[in-house]
């Protein structure tokens, strides 16, 4: 399984057959990767390789799995987005930004860009993880996706006219109500999930899991997809996207991520939709779109396994590829940095923290002000007091000792933010497993710990909210308090 060339002998780096093998593994491991021929043509900067590489880069750089809707974007649009994404990642070469977007030239530059991305991070693994088939009931523990709240308002909102503030109040109340509804539905779903796990104990072939997940149980209940409740939305028995759809609707830890899962599976099922010619699919796509959920799930799993094997093969043979890329780079002329023009980047995704830098600057400046005042005061007081003290040797020794101690303390403080965010918090979706004894392996999470973390997070956030509300209260009191003839009666306390 690709273990043949584990440690490539540097002396025999360009062994015949090693390079094509490596490139073949690479193209198999990427979703609809271009054929090895494309790579070779790109080295010689042939124009016919360009559009395939643009599309591949688009898929790699897109923040979410590319569905049909996105794949059908015109080549120019894709190329443009690729450029801005690369720019925002700090891609060094300027030639890429200057390439025409119609796919007529520049395949060598694109090949270099692809290699740059591959060198920076585990790209095939990440893409595989993105498109993974989840077999269990997944719950996302870390909040990084939950934090990405729906950013700017949806474009379909028409500009409404001036609105009464009571409408705002009403919307707020509606929002509170919806949250309450959400909580109660969530509780019910957890209870049902727990029951299902309990009842199917003992039947999973994998002892460490011990019970079926909802996806698996549903697949058993209805392997042919012949029986679907009418209210289930999409005609699931006929929809080859059923397995993934089922999964995403079952996850208790829902959030924006599962929504995009839905989008993905509805738009893209290479090999499951009729007439799709996925070059990667050696087994051949089933031309029939009426796949039972079981078959669909099996196919997706098998395809994932194939890609996994390709990635493993790539990892074992990639050294040869890097040697080759060095030669490709050598054939390009060295660039002259454009004088004084910082490449501008247009963020692909409208970033929520656009003014983040400004906020931090302001905070720090305020802090600086406070500190300056405090230091002046203290320094003046100190000079007044200690001016009269002697300047003996023990005095200066004491001063030096103090200075060193303070430096050490402050150095430790600096470490607190210098190093990257603390202990590795496990993130990504976790499969829910019910065990009476709660035993868990070293990499697994226990619910009790997660609950503790969440409680502390909750406390933090509540404190922040209360602080903000307190600020508002003070501000409003200041604004309206001066008016005579009015009595402000606060609402009854909690």
């Amino acid at each position, binding site marked *: 399984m690709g273990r043949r060339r584990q440690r490539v002998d540097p002396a025999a780096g360009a062994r015949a057959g090693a390079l094509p093998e490596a490139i073949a593994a690479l193209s198999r491991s990427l979703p609809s990767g271009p054929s090895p021929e494309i790579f070779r043509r790109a080295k010689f900067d042939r124009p016919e390789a360009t559009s395939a590489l643009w599309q591949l880069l688009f898929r790699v750089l897109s923040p979410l799995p590319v569905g049909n809707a996105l794949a059908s974007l015109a080549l120019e649009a894709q190329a443009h987005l690729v450029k801005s994404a690369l720019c925002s990642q700090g891609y060094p070469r300027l030639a890429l930004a200057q390439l025409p977007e119609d796919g007529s030239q520049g395949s060598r530059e694109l090949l270099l860009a692809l290699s740059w991305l591959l060198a920076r991070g585990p790209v095939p693994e990440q893409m595989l*993880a993105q498109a993974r088939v989840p077999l269990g009931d997944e719950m996302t523990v870390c*909040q990084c996706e939950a934090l990405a709240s729906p950013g700017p308002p949806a*474009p379909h909102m028409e500009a409404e006219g001036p609105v009464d503030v*009571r409408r705002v109040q009403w919307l707020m109340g509606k929002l509170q109500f919806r949250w309450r509804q959400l909580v109660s539905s969530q509780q019910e779903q957890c209870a049902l999930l727990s029951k299902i796990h309990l009842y199917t104990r003992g039947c999973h072939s994998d002892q460490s899991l011990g019970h079926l997940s909802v996806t698996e149980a549903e697949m058993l209940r209805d392997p042919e997809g012949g029986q679907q409740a009418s209210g289930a939305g999409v005609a699931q028995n006929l929809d080859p996207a059923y397995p993934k759809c089922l999964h995403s609707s079952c996850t208790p830890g829902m959030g924006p991520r599962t929504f995009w899962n839905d989008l993905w599976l509805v738009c893209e099922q290479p090999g499951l939709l009729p007439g799709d010619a996925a070059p990667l699919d050696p087994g051949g796509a089933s031309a029939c779109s009426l796949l039972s959920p079981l078959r669909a799930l*099996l196919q997706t799993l098998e395809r994932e396994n194939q890609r996994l094997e390709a990635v493993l093969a790539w990892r074992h043979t990639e050294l040869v590829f890097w040697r080759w890329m060095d030669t490709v780079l050598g054939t390009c002329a060295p660039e002259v940095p454009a004088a004084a023009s910082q490449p501008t980047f*247009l963020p692909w995704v409208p970033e929520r923290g656009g003014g983040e*830098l400004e906020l931090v600057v302001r905070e720090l400046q305020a802090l600086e002000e406070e500190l300056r005042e405090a230091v002046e005061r203290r320094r003046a007081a100190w000079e007044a007091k200690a001016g009269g003290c002697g300047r003996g040797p023990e005095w200066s020794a004491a001063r030096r000792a103090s200075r060193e101690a303070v430096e050490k303390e402050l150095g430790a*403080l600096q470490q607190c933010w210098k190093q990257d965010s603390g202990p590795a918090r496990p993130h990504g979706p976790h499969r829910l497993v019910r065990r009476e004894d709660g035993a868990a392996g070293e990499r697994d999470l226990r619910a009790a710990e997660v609950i503790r973390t969440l409680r502390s997070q909750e406390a933090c956030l*509540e404190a922040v909210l209360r602080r903000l509300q307190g600020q508002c209260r003070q501000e409003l009191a200041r604004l309206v308090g001066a008016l005579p003839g009015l009595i402000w*009666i606060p609402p009854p306390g909690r």
Partner: protein
Amino acid sequence: MLPADCSRRLVAELQGALDACAQRQLQLEQSLRVCRRLLQAWEPTGTWALKPPPGPETNEEDPLPACTPSPQDLKELEFLTQALEKAVRVRRGITKAGERDKAPSLKSRSIVTSPGTTASAPPQSRGQAGQAGGHASDTRPTKGLRQTAVPAKGHAERRLLSVGDRTRVGMGARAPRPGAGLRDQQMAPSAAPQAPEAFTLKEKGHLLRLPAAFRKAASQNSRPISPAGITMFLCGSWGTPCVHPSLWAQLGSTQTSDSMDATAAKTQFLQNMQTASGVPQPRLSAAEVEAEAGRLRKACSLLRLRMREELSAAPMDWMQEYRCLLTLEGLQAMVGQCLHRLQELRAAVVVQPPRPCPVEGPPRASPSCRGGAEPAWSPQLLVYSSTQELQTLAALQLRVAMLDQQIHLEKVLMAELLPLVSTAQPQGPPWLALCRAAHSLLCEGGARVLTILRDEPAV
């Protein structure tokens, strides 16, 4: 009335939040539907019974013809059925008398036992007990069932095992009553003609088996490491245990033990790219800038905290006072450094207003989470031990998400409403109404409203 642009922003934000909630609610409801359906009685569909299992999954079982079997077979099955019913009766006599027999009498034949196999007895009685409302205890009835091969080739197995695994006889219990088409001339019309073989997950859940092909593919794909630290799964049909790391696990191990040469080659390549482009220092990516800004924000709060501590501490003697002074000066210097760094960052970044892009608002994994820990490719488990725990967990997650949203809305409202209140001329009821609404929204989360009394001087 609020001015137009302010209204637009507020309504848009709130509407966005409402939409997000609605989305989640929809997903939850779909999920609830599926779960509820799973917990109800599982109806067999007519389509299963006679269809021979398709394709490669038939390697373990001879595909039985869809046509009616010979009368000889039918007779044998009939004998078998009678023997089983008798066995069941005997068993039931041993277990609690007075156990309720549910209407579909087929439930009594639920467990396949070959008459002589005692190993299967416990599962059967447990199966019976299951009907009375308890659920299976922890011992694995599966082993017992696996021994029995009796009507193993029954069509009914395929109800759940569409790949026709011959060893899984849990549901093959129905074999004496294979698909209706086979024996309708001999079968008494069952009480529920549509569902002669219905059962609930509660009773029979522990007897289900996943199809073999699926198990194979899934275990090859990913097997979580059991607490014992050994990954085992049953490959093949009869449980030849083999220790074999799954593909995802292999991926994880190659990540950590990456070939030194490959890593060195990659670094070299990146450096070459950098020098070839003429810019010696790599430019910062947007993600890095954001991460840096986050770190500096954290620095700011830590420094402020430290400053407060120092200022509030009352120095005892001149030594302590001196240290306090030094600390404050040190803090001041650090703040200066941070500001300097920020200016550098600002200069390195030129941000233009984003173009409307075809992909709106997809969630982006925040850099702190993605870059930090080594990505764990193998699936990780989240282990819970009771329903309450799971519910608490989910409720807390929702609460944290809700608080986050509330804080965001609070900031937006502050930015929009406070200026309005301060700039509006204090005249008349509209402004008072605005104040009242602003107070309610900003200070009480919209839940409570204060009262304003006009205090007219009498006469």
